[in-house]
């Protein structure tokens, strides 16, 4: 009896991070779960039907129309650049907002699975990010059509949009991971989230362009991580210009910081989820 070595030993866990290498390899092995779970969720949201797709596109498109009319009424000057900016930024913003709204309850709604299956919990918010990304894809095509109709400039600089989207995904996944964890301890975070995203929408250069901002209000730029990101995005996809390098670096730094912090926060606590959900 004494000769056998246990395959697995479970003891009270020490505070801090779980063994990262092992965690990563189990997470990697579960990648088909992430793919399949995202797929079923998309199916549930009728992503794979024509009307489901139309709805996904219609929502931000209508919103950008409403805001555009609003801007005209308020008396700001409105032109096709402005409309392109508004639409492009709303689409990217929706990618991030959808990641957060899908992610925030990902852990608490997976309660049953968490209580009965051993798996890296990080899979749940990651699946939410994947879903949000797929919902973002059709809006890219709509924007391409729209910008052709509007006759916006075209150029290689538009390719900057790829790293920008990657940064946006990294950033919003980081926040999603963080808030999905916080939501285990405070279940009403999910209720506060819409107010938070709405506020972020108004404080970001979406309804207005960076160039239009009063110098006294420039400080917003320093505290809102979306500021340099959306500015770069607008330059690249609307104006076909290269974004400022500093803006890109600042957004990347924010994204890495938030993602690292969110993941650390999550990993330190995830072993406790099963006794908390």
């Amino acid at each position, binding site marked *: 009896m004494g000769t056998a070595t246990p395959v697995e030993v479970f003891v009270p866990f020490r505070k801090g991070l779980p063994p990262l290498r092992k965690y990563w390899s189990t997470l990697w092995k579960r990648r088909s779960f992430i793919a399949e779970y995202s797929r079923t969720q998309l199916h549930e949201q009728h992503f794979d039907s024509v009307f489901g797709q139309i709805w996904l596109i219609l929502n931000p498109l209508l919103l950008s129309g409403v805001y555009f009319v609003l801007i005209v009424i308020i008396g700001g000057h409105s032109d096709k650049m402005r409309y392109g900016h508004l639409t492009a930024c709303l689409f990217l913003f929706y990618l991030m907002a959808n990641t957060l709204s899908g992610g925030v309850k990902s852990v608490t709604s997976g309660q049953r699975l968490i209580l009965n299956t051993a798996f890296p919990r990080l899979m749940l918010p990651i699946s939410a990010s994947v879903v949000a990304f797929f919902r973002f894809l059709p809006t890219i095509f709509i924007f391409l059509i729209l910008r052709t109709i509007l006759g916006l400039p075209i150029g290689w600089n538009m390719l900057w949009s790829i790293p920008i989207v990657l940064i946006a995904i990294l950033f919003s996944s980081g926040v999603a991971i963080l808030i999905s964890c916080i939501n285990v301890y405070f*279940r009403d975070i999910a209720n506060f989230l819409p107010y938070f995203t709405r506020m972020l929408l108004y404080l970001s250069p979406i309804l207005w362009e960076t160039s239009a901002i009063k110098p006294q209000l420039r400080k917003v730029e320093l505290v809102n991580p979306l500021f340099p990101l959306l500015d770069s995005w607008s330059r690249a996809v609307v104006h076909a210009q290269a974004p400022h390098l500093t803006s890109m670096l600042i957004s990347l730094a924010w994204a890495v910081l938030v993602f690292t912090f969110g993941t650390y926060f999550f990993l330190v606590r995830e072993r406790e989820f099963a006794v*908390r959900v």
Partner: protein
Amino acid sequence: MSNSLHKPGEIAVSVQHLGLTYTTTIDKRPTLKARLKTMGRGTKQTRVVRALDDVMLDVAYGSVLGVVGANGAGKSTLMRVISGILPPSQGRVEVYGKVSTLLALGVGFSPSLSGRANVYLGGLAAGMSSQEIENHFEEIADFAELGDAIDAPMRTYSSGMYARLAFSVAVTVRPDILIVDEALSTGDARFKEKSLEKIKELRSDARALILVSHALGTVRDICNEVAWLHKGKLIQRGKPDEVVDAYASFLQVGKSAAINEDV
């Protein structure tokens, strides 16, 4: 599934001085609002439930361990610790083999999805490959006898249908150490019979079985050993007849003492 051969009598699971505490809030849902409201008052919002307390137990290969106890005794919690879902609060659990990491109750985690999708997702989450699930799916669906209902959302299932699917999943995936938690007791008489047959069939020298059940007759019939848990403590373990008799008479007494019972 695993071809590492385990000799009968060899230890499969060793549970040593195991303790586990759940932390729950007094309100149903812990919220920030509630926390902010009570912050000034300094009242504690959390309630601590000691679900397992100094439990000592081991299971050998080739044996079937029955676990009995009233609702809330900590049976499911013990199973969760053994399958590595809950880290212990105190003590140590050693597992010598591949344990089922998908407890039957995990099936149906998403009520809006079909039974099929739930089985797939549950299996993938537990670390099975889609090929493995594919191979087993037919068998699972056949055994559960759900017919077309397998593609209906699980929220439309009756508790019996639910239990059938859960049981089928638990017994079709064949780890070295198999845990079946209460999936036996629901279902109609015929299905009960059938599941009993299945369990008997699964008893093998190279496997350890842990069976949580309220069906005392079954436990008496197929287990080699029975453990009785009550309020997180191991009250008694030993020969099935002795322990089941003791537990049954406790339930009789308990009836008058208004203890939560369920057979």
